[in-house]
């Protein structure tokens, strides 16, 4: 199964980067990067199945597609930001990781602003 392959690969990558960390730390960092990319490509391929199911559910419930695309955008931003932040932290650069995280949070906030506005407008109408 896929999970066995990934875990074996992960352990192997860790061991190899352990060897390289003593002599050439940059190669161990490259190894971590390569391993993260492999797992992320697996994750993305699994996500495609998930998104097909979400589309089916969405067609049944007749939800407004705008909200669904907003949620998907947020998930995408968190995924990419998480990937970059963890890699930067792994390499030891906390500040860069913090900046990327801050930017990710801001962009999610900006995306979710229209929903907040619509919510407040509906409340205003009730008043």
């Amino acid at each position: 199964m896929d999970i066995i392959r990934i875990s074996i690969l992960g352990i192997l990558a860790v061991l190899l980067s352990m060897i390289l960390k003593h002599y050439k730390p940059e190669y161990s960092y490259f190894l971590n990067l390569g391993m993260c990319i492999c797992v992320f490509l697996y994750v993305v391929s699994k996500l495609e199945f998930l998104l097909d199911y979400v589309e089916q559910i969405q067609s049944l419930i007749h939800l407004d597609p705008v909200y669904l695309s907003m949620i998907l955008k947020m998930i995408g931003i968190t995924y990419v930001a998480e990937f970059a932040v963890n890699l930067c932290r792994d390499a030891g650069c906390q500040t860069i990781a913090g900046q990327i995280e801050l930017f990710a949070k801001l962009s999610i906030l900006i995306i979710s602003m229209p929903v907040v506005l619509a919510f407040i407008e509906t409340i205003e109408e009730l008043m």
Partner: protein
Amino acid sequence: MNENLIFKIAAVGILVTILSQVLKQSGREEHAFLTSLAGLLIVLFWIVPYIYELFETMRKLFAL
């Protein structure tokens, strides 16, 4: 899948480490630095397409 990327990186890493050790012992310090630089560039050229492919699929998948 693309596991061989990891093995290639590890191979280049170990090879460059050995080469730079040998060159250091034989007194050619700058050659050792050049080999490690070359190794880094090679690995970089391998990894960049993968990163691009990853972020491209992310962009298409999530309509970012």
